[in-house]
Every structure is written in C-alpha cells, then in structure tokens.
C-alpha cells in the first residue's frame, strides 16, 4: 500500500505542482492518476520513487517512509515505465531488460535468463533479445519498457503515460496486454495518464487531479462516470460519459430474440410468412452450424420467388457481433448502431448465434440501467435495500 499524507510540492519560484495530496493506493490494485497538464500527476508519481522530493507531507510504501532509503536503492525496488519507453539505445533488448537485476548484483547468466522470461511474458519473440531498441516498432519498445520495469519483480510499478506515444491501435493492444499481465501479477500500479478512457479501462480506482495539483475526486471508474463530484470532474470525464458508462453493464441480461432467426435452407416463402406473422422487417439468416450469414429484409422476401432458398438471396451484412456472456451493453449498442438492419447479433463464445436484439429493445435495457443517478447493476441490490440517496 502506498499512502500520500498531505503531500505538497512547491518549487522555489512559488509554483505549486502538488497541493496537500491525501491518497491511498491499495496493494495489488491499479490506481490511475488522471488530469490535464499542470495537474501535478507526473510530479506526484515521481515523488514515490524520489525523482522529485516533496516539500511537505510524507509518502510511505507499506508503512515505510520513502525518505528512509537511499534514492538509487529505493528506485531499484520500484518498477518504472516512462513515456517513449526511455530504452537505452546502446544496449540490446535483453541488456535493457536486465538493467535492474544487474544493478542489484545478479550474475550475468541469471539476469539473462530473467530477461528472456520477461520477453516472453510481454509477448515478444526470443529473437528480439539481441536487437537494439531502434530496430523495434514503438509498440515493441514500450513492451520492452514494461519488461524492464518488471525485471527484478518489484511489488510496485510506476507508469508515466507509457502508451501515449504510440498509435491508437497499438495503444489498445498494449492496454489489453497490461490488463492481462496485471491479472497474473497483481502489482501495485500507479498509472499516470491524461486520457480518461485509458483511465477507465485500466484503473481499479481513478484519482482526478485538477490544475494546481489538488485532488478533485477518487473513485472507481463506474462511480466516477456515474457521479462526478463536481463540474470540473464532469467536464473532464466528458459529456458522453453516459454512453461510456454502459461499458460497466453486462450484455447478458439483454432479452435476445430467437424467433427472428431462420436457417439458410428455408425458402423465401416460409421466411416471408414468418416475417409477416411477427411483423418484423428483418430476419437473421444462419447456416446449418448456427453461424450468422446476414440479414434479409421482409421486402426482399416478398419480392423473391417463394421457392428460392434463403442462401441464394442477397443478404445484408450482419456487421459487428457482440459476445453475450462477456461483452458489455456498450458493445451491444455499438453492434446495433453499426448494423445495417439496426439490430445487433449476440453470439456465444464459440461464435454461434444466441439471438438478436433491436435498437429499440436495447434502448429499453439501457433506460432500465438508469439515468446518471442510478448506481450500476452490481450495486443495485444494495441500493434497493436501502438508503442510497
């Protein structure tokens, strides 16, 4: 556990970077410090490993004041991932990763073995070990940066906007990778970013800092999106927070319709009759293995010759699908909005169709999880039982 107890950093010219910060970072969790530039988030991070010394208050790691240790020794026990990776250009990837173990006096062979383990852990090929950083892509460099930070297996990991210098696709991949690693390693991570989406995706809790280095709010991501403490936090998390909050609600409670599903070997006549009976403008065609083939409109069925098999007709693409058991309402909404038929296809883990949901039904589900003042689904039982405003 890392605690900030009234920590202040004031520079000699009077600028206050961090102002009386009280914050607890629980062990094994990811805490994200988020804020615009000038909010002191990087300064706060760097005070943990004494790259910046506070002018007031104190920081402890598991009860030990960080000022009790010689800075270089302290830093070797804390992993650090810097923006742009900060790899040493004159050292191979393996030697970069082995940096802290070597500083700690490990033997060359032990450090080397460890470097190869970590290379694998962060998803790089063994042949990358002998390359130099400039021979890697930005995303690969950042992976090496993470591997280097983890090399001596420190309990605490500090990450200073580690993914901000790579393109959005690579960034999303690295974020997923970090979530996977953290699920395995349970490090105490302090992560700095200016990107609220990144904070929501990665954080177990989020601390929003306002300019001048004052703490605006600390909360879990869903709580932050649901109940911003004030106008500053609200504007910072963005006015589309309602939609983004849907990420925290599972799609599996959606009522999926199976009656609109027809198989490819049925005829246009049969399907047309079904569509008329249901009053549905679209039917979903699946193959014999119940995998989605596409949408067929009631109009197209009426126009087609009654004996034709459905798979001989022109189908409208089904677009994105969402996985019912693991995806969120946001993914389902996204799939519906992007579908030409205005309906989202829900699939099981093996890709077979579980059912379809129309935007209107999705709307009802979204409405039922509530306006901004309602707590998320997982807290609903508690709220129903009592005094939640």
């Amino acid at each position, binding site marked *: 556990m890392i605690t900030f107890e009234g920590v202040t950093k004031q520079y000699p010219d009077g600028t206050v970077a961090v102002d009386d910060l009280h914050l607890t970072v629980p062990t094994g969790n990811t805490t994200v410090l988020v804020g615009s530039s000038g909010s002191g988030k990087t300064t706060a991070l760097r005070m943990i*490993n004494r*790259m910046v010394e506070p002018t007031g208050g104190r920081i402890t790691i598991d009860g030990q004041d960080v000022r009790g240790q010689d*800075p*270089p*020794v*302290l*830093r*070797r026990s804390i992993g*650090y991932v*810097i*923006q*742009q*990776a*900060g*790899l*040493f*250009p*004159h*050292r*191979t990837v393996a030697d970069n990763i082995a*940096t802290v173990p070597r*500083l700690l006096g490990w033997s060359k062979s032990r450090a080397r073995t460890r470097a190869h383990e970590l290379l694998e852990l962060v998803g790089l090929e063994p042949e990358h070990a002998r390359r*130099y*950083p*400039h*021979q890697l*892509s930005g*995303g*690969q460099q950042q992976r090496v940066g993470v591997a*280097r930070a983890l090399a001596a297996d420190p309990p605490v990991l*500090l990450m200073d906007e580690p993914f901000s210098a790579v393109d959005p*696709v*690579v960034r*999303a*991949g690295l974020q*997923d*990778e970090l*979530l996977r690693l953290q699920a395995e390693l349970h490090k105490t991570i302090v992560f700095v970013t200016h990107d609220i*989406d990144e904070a*929501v*995706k*990665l954080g177990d809790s989020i601390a929003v800092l306002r300019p001048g280095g004052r703490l605006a709010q600390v909360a879990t*991501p869903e709580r932050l999106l649901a109940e911003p403490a004030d106008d500053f936090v609200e504007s910072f998390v963005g006015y589309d927070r309602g939609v*983004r909050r849907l*990420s*925290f*609600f*599972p799609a599996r409670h959606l009522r999926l319709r199976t009656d609109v599903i027809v198989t490819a070997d049925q005829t246009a006549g049969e399907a047309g009759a079904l569509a008329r009976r249901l009053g549905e403008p679209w039917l979903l065609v699946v193959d014999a293995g119940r995998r989605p083939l596409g949408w067929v409109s009631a109009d197209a069925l009426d126009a087609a010759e009654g004996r034709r098999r459905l798979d001989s007709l022109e189908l409208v693409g089904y677009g*994105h699908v969402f996985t019912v058991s*693991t*995806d*969120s309402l*946001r*993914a389902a909404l*996204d*799939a519906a909005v992007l579908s030409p038929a205005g309906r989202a296809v829900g699939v099981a883990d093996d890709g077979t169709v579980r059912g379809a949901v129309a935007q209107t039904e999705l709307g009802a589900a979204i409405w039922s999880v509530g306006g901004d003042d309602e707590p*998320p*689904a*997982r807290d609903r*039982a508690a709220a129903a039982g009592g005094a939640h405003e």
Partner: protein
Amino acid sequence: MSEAAAGAADHPLWGWAVESWTWGWANLDDPVGPLLGEHLLLSLASIAIGLAAAVPLGLLSVRYRFLYPPVLTGVNTLYAVPSLALFFLLLPYTAFSPWTAILPLALYTLAILVPNVVDGLTQVPDHVRQAAVAMGFGPLRRLLLVELPVALPVIIAGLRVASVATISMVSVASLVGLGGLGGLITDGFNRDFAAPVVVGIVLSVLLAFAADGGLVLLQRALTPWARRDARPGRRRRRAADRAARAATAPRPAGPQPEESP
C-alpha cells in the same frame, strides 16, 4: 609507344612523381621512415592528451552550464593563437623535447573536442537519462554506463576532425625541429628539391586518411547500435509488426465487468 603517351611521360608532373617515388623509396630507412613514425607519435600523443582533457572539461561544462561559455571562449582563443608563437613560447620550458610540439597541438584539439563532448552529452535524450535515474543508477554509473556510451558517436565524430587537423598541423613543428614529415617539406624547400616535399605531403595526407579510416572502424566496433543502415530482414520485420498489431486489435468495448452478485 604512342605520341600521346610519350607526351604524358614527358609532362613535368610525371617527372616529379617518378623522381619523388624513387627518392622516397631510396630514403625509406633514413629519413622518411623515422620521420613518419615521429609524425604518427606526435599526432597520437596530442590527440590522446587533448581527449583526456576535453572529457572532464566537457563534463564540467554540462554539469555546470555557466562554465560552458567561458570554457568555449577559452579553447577557441587558444585555437586562434598562431602555432608558431606557442612553440616558441614553450621552448624555454620544454626545450627541444617532443612536448614542445605535443602541448600546443593538444591544446588545439580542445577547440574541436570540447564542443563535441558537450554536444554528445546534451543530445542524450531526456527520457533515456530519466529512465536511467528511475532504474536506480547512481550519478557515476549513469555517466559511465549510459550517458558517455550514448554520446560516443558524437565524440568520435569530433575525434575524426581533430585527428585530421592535428596530423596536418604537426608539420609546422618542423620549424622548431620537431615536425615529423614536416621535416621533409622544409628540407626540400631549403634545398630547392621537390621530391622530399612531395613525399612529405603525400605521406601526411595518407596518414590522415588512415587515422580517419581507423576511427570509422573503431566507431563501428564500439557503437554497433548506432548503425541505422537498412539490413535485409528489416522489411520482413515491419510486416511482422503489422501482423502482430492486427492480431492484438482492440474490441470496441472497454473492460468487461465482473459477474453481478
């Protein structure tokens, strides 16, 4: 033999070349060989001493920025003092020992080496330096294991310029009897005899080329990481990167929620 070839053979330059070659070969053991050795020794000693002085001066100038402007002005001023004057100024102290040549030449290299050491160290990217601090390097280890190695290509670039300049300048010291190959040149002019002059110039230039080439090889050996030439496989690697990216493409939604209780 054709008329044109005969004309070329009659050309005065051709005559000089043949005469110089013959003279140089005949006098290889004395004085050409020893003078070449002396030239090499004087140059090497000057550059080595210059480098040994430039590195600490450069480090101080980077550590204490306010020192750099006076240091730079100082070494540039020294560079502006005519070499001849410096040789004669030193004569009372060092007499005709090699130091009379070496000390001024070493001082001259500072004007090239100090700015290169400073530039080399200041162009170490900030994120690299920060990372070194964050990994737990103490100041000395950071300097020796990170900053100086990363600065090496720029320092060696300075060394190449300094070595060529020094090798050409050694000849001037022949005026105080210490010039290496410069001795051949003054001797030739005194006797109104072209061959030693030509031999002195050619060997001096070849020595400069050799020193420069040696430093290029040294740089390639010491800084394999700085080679950015495209190698086969680079294109393949890029394609592999793209494939890897595609494989880790994100899904539209954020983190997935846990099971509701």
